[in-house]
């Protein structure tokens, strides 16, 4: 499968140049002239790495990132900027950006960052696939486990035996390919699965 890149820059010449570069490296590129345009056509699931200019008219890169962060899935973002502004780079990285590159950007740097983003996208897609293979019962138990509840308590709530919960629980871990409750919690976060007892 070809990795996808969403390229968001309001300067047409540079956008075309970056598009060519990414295409030459085998990426499928979807270009947008503004962040609003990109957000208006945002797919439900993050299926590509976003390469976005920081300073754009209308909605700027950081504001767009804020909206992407609240989206259901996590979008890997590589920022491009005309000048290395420390404050905005810190803000961007804190909000989970992959990298923050200064224009003119060297192909090597850009491609390394975009590949890291593409790897994240693939990983997330695989995780979603694994999660899709869980039965409704297994998902329910997963939400109990990440709420920090013991098998005994879960069994009582669901009117079954502790042994049954143990079996379901190990199947959840096996299907998601993880070993610890800590990893389960972080996977749940990435999947947007909320613990039992919290609003979902």
């Amino acid at each position, binding site marked *: 499968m070809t990795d996808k890149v969403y390229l968001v820059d309001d*300067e047409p010449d540079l956008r075309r*140049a970056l598009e*060519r570069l990414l295409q030459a490296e085998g990426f499928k590129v979807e270009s947008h002239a503004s962040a609003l345009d990109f957000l208006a056509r945002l797919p439900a699931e993050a299926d590509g790495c976003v390469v976005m200019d920081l300073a754009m*008219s209308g909605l700027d890169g950081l504001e767009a990132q804020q909206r992407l962060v609240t989206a259901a899935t996590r979008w890997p973002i590589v920022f491009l900027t005309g000048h290395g502004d420390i404050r905005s780079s810190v803000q961007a990285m804190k909000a989970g950006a992959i990298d923050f590159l200064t224009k003119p950007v060297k*192909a090597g740097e850009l491609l390394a960052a975009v590949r890291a983003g593409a790897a994240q996208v693939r990983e997330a897609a695989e995780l979603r696939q694994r999660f899709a293979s869980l039965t409704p019962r297994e998902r329910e138990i997963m939400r109990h486990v990440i709420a920090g509840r013991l098998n005994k308590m879960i069994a009582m709530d669901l009117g079954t035996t502790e042994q049954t919960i143990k079996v379901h629980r190990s199947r959840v871990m096996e299907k998601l390919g993880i070993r610890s409750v800590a990893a389960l919690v972080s996977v749940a976060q990435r999947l947007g699965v909320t613990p039992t007892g919290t609003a979902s």
Partner: protein
Amino acid sequence: MDISARKQAEDERALQRVELEHLARLNTLAELSGTLAHEINQPLATIMSNTEAAQRLLASPRPDLDELRSIMADILAADERADAVVKRLRAMLRRGPAMREPLELDALVAGVLDFMAGELRRRGVAPRIELGAPGARLWGDRVSLEQVLINLINNACDALAVRDAGMRRLVLRTRQEGAELCVEVCDNGAGLKAGAEEIFAPFFTTKTEGLGMGLAISRSIVQAHEGRISVRNDPAGGAVFELRFPAHRPAQGAVEAR
């Protein structure tokens, strides 16, 4: 006072004005340094990514020649853009007496707006241009007049900072009224609280950084062109700066020669 002393005093005044205009130009350039860096950096970035894309295409077994040709054309265009910025920079840095020539007003205004497009975009200002004096000319110094317009546009941008990003509008308008050419620079910003006389006075400023010389110099440049500069608040909000110049009429002989 005898004639030679008066002449000397006049020369000194003229020299002072040239010096002052030059200083004001340097100040304008300092305010625009971010824009200038960006206007040069942007084509550089375009050239770099296009070149690196071309190198990758050339490494493929059967390079797409059409694509390579259009890459080359884009590289050249970017190069010319950077070159134009450097030329303009050089012209503004040049010290010396004004050079008068017939200038097409509409082309002058459109050229300045083009130069400021990147800056306006970054500051979230949406410009509109209404050219209503096709072919009309004035007799003037291009660089000085450009500086006046840049200064007014810069001020408009500052005044627009109070508005939300999607709402910042700037309108540049030209028209001919009889023997006069008129340019208006309108914004929908905060408008003016100070009186017109006050804001054209030297060292008047509402900005934390700035010499307060921009409008004083602009007025002196406009007056040196036998023109007038005035300002009023738009009843709908914002300020309108108006420049008026006598239209340039080619000499009788030049008209007959056509």
